[in-house]
């Protein structure tokens, strides 16, 4: 009965509606401010930034700031390095994860349960626990210091990726794969020609998440990539912050350059990214 009266007299609802929308509007403004200010700072010289007055408009110094940035650190190179590292990490991470996830989803074999339990356990072990030995093994013993290969290698064993792909393949009807098997297809062909095409959207989600994770990584590339020619964008930023005199305008150009493509990508692929995060966490 009460809900019926609520429908007839939606006054209370109207206030709820107004305050809710107002609240979220404020939240959205606060949340977007850092990114907006990033682009503003990137377009002013340091004198303006240091002046102590509120800057609310874009200036005209973007290109000058960019030139100064390049003179301090080869940031374009750093972004290219980041793209190389993140692409390779994503591609090989996807290959390894989808193969392993498929095996765990489709086959019953001795050790499958143990392997899966181990993956769940690994999900709970912080990456920090293995940074030191990984460094000792890959850099000291294998001599992979300052190589892309050395940076990318740890991205291959991604427990979250295997878990994600296992869940994805489990959701496929087994009968489709069985039909292909009866049709005489080899397991590799079933995987490549039947299963993979059917999980393309989920793989796209995982790809984006792996790419962001590789792109984001700070500690590991900081340890492995030691020269300016090889460093990734986050490391270049870190180096700039560490300089005695911080040039904020140029630095914000760098931040903008490494952020805007992702925010744009997010605008386009929000659905995949969101579903990727949700599916990796829940299920």
């Amino acid at each position, binding site marked *: 009965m009460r809900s019926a009266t609520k429908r007839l007299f939606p006054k209370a609802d109207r206030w709820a509606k107004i305050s809710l929308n107002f609240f979220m509007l404020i939240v959205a403004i606060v949340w977007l401010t850092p990114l907006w200010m990033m682009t503003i700072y990137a377009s002013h010289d340091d004198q303006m930034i240091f002046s102590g007055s509120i800057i609310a408009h874009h200036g005209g110094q973007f290109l000058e700031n960019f030139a100064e940035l390049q003179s301090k650190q080869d940031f374009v190179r750093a972004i290219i390095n980041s793209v190389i590292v993140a692409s390779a990490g994503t591609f090989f991470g996807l290959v390894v994860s989808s193969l392993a996830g498929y095996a765990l989803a489709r086959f019953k074999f001795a050790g499958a349960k143990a392997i899966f339990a181990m993956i769940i356990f690994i999900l709970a072990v912080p990456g920090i626990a293995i940074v030191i030995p990984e460094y000792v093994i890959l850099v000291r013993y294998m001599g992979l210091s300052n190589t892309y290969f050395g940076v990318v290698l740890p991205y291959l064993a991604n427990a979250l990726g295997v878990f994600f792909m296992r869940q994805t393949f489990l959701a496929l*009807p087994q*009968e*489709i794969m*069985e*039909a*292909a*098997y*009866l*049709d*005489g*297809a080899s397991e590799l*062909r079933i995987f490549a020609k*039947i299963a993979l*095409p*059917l999980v393309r959207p989920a793989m796209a989600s995982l790809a984006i998440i792996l790419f962001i994770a590789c792109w984001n990584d700070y500690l590991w590339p900081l340890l492995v990539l030691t020269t300016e020619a090889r460093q990734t964008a986050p490391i270049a930023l870190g180096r700039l912050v560490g300089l005695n005199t911080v040039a904020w305008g140029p630095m914000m150009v760098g931040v903008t350059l490494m952020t805007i493509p992702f925010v744009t990508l997010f605008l386009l692929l929000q659905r995949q990214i969101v579903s990727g995060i949700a599916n990796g966490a829940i299920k």
Partner: protein
Amino acid sequence: MANVDIKELRKNYGALDVIKGINLSIREKEFTCFLGPSGCGKSTLLRMIAGLEDIDEGTLAIGNKVMNDVPAAKRNISMVFQSYALYPHMTVRQNMEFGLKLLKLPKEEIELRISETAQILQLTPYLDRLPKQLSGGQRQRVAIGRAIVKRPQVFLLDEPLSNLDAALRVSMRVELARLHEELDATMIYVTHDQIEAMTLADRVVVMRDGQIEQVGTPLELLHSPKNLFVAQFIGSPKINSFDVEVVGNHGTQVTVTGQAFSKPLTVEMANAANLSSGTRLTLCLRPHRLRNDTNLEHQITGTVQLIERLGSESLIHLDIGLPDPVISSSEGTAPVRRGDQISLRFSAQNCLLFDTQGAALPRKLPADAQALMGTDAQHVA
């Protein structure tokens, strides 16, 4: 086309036996149905024939060749799945081609087979569509088409109609019967729907708990069930069962009494039975044998509890003072109401008798059933 021979077939999942020693010969060109409640192992048995499940013990031969260790693709079978299992990202044509290409057939042969099959199944206009652009019935036909193009020795069908709505199921059933005629193929068909089994099959294999309860033609199952399980499982509505006691046994004539009946009734047996007085038995009577026909000798009296009007028939639930009501299938316009006190009549020759273990005591078939099945059918039961 080939026959399928199964000897002492067994399968277990860990400690759980799912197939417990099955012996079965399926003749060439025969349409065989595996029928049983869910969990009886019928699908597992089919998947073992297909090669989707390992055989733990026993032998499986298709066309007199032992297939235990032959990979599924080389068994010369094809299978239609319950969910159709069409490749969602391939067109109808690609779905049918996939297996043929893997067989490395020449291109012209593949095209010929696909166009022929599409013709038979009226799929020609849809060859370049994706499964999601088809209706449920069309998808079903594609699944069948994908099985047909391979021209297998044996067709395996796993509950192929269960995903269709009721109307479509009836028309696909007719179409399957026609296809069997046309292809003249050995078909093994798994279902839990006895109407499908009874209408389609040459022979039905009734299964329970990983074992075969009875193999027979639909009429044999109906009129000469081997045991109480088959009697109760086959036939809709379910057969009426009564506890009875032997009061007389004269050679092939057994006389019994029961709480439900006003007087003793005498059943004619196929062979002389050796039953002493006082032996407890179960007597079964099909609902359609219980009618308002004063010519019949025996009667059951009770109060009408419920009437289900199904159109051409009415199911009358009669409370006769026993825990379970007696059900009669009468004509659709039977003039009875709830609460009426009525008597329904039946003939003793339509009764089935089972011992306490559930095994059937072979009876002399009633004249009408005998006429349907031919005289030689009598010895089967």
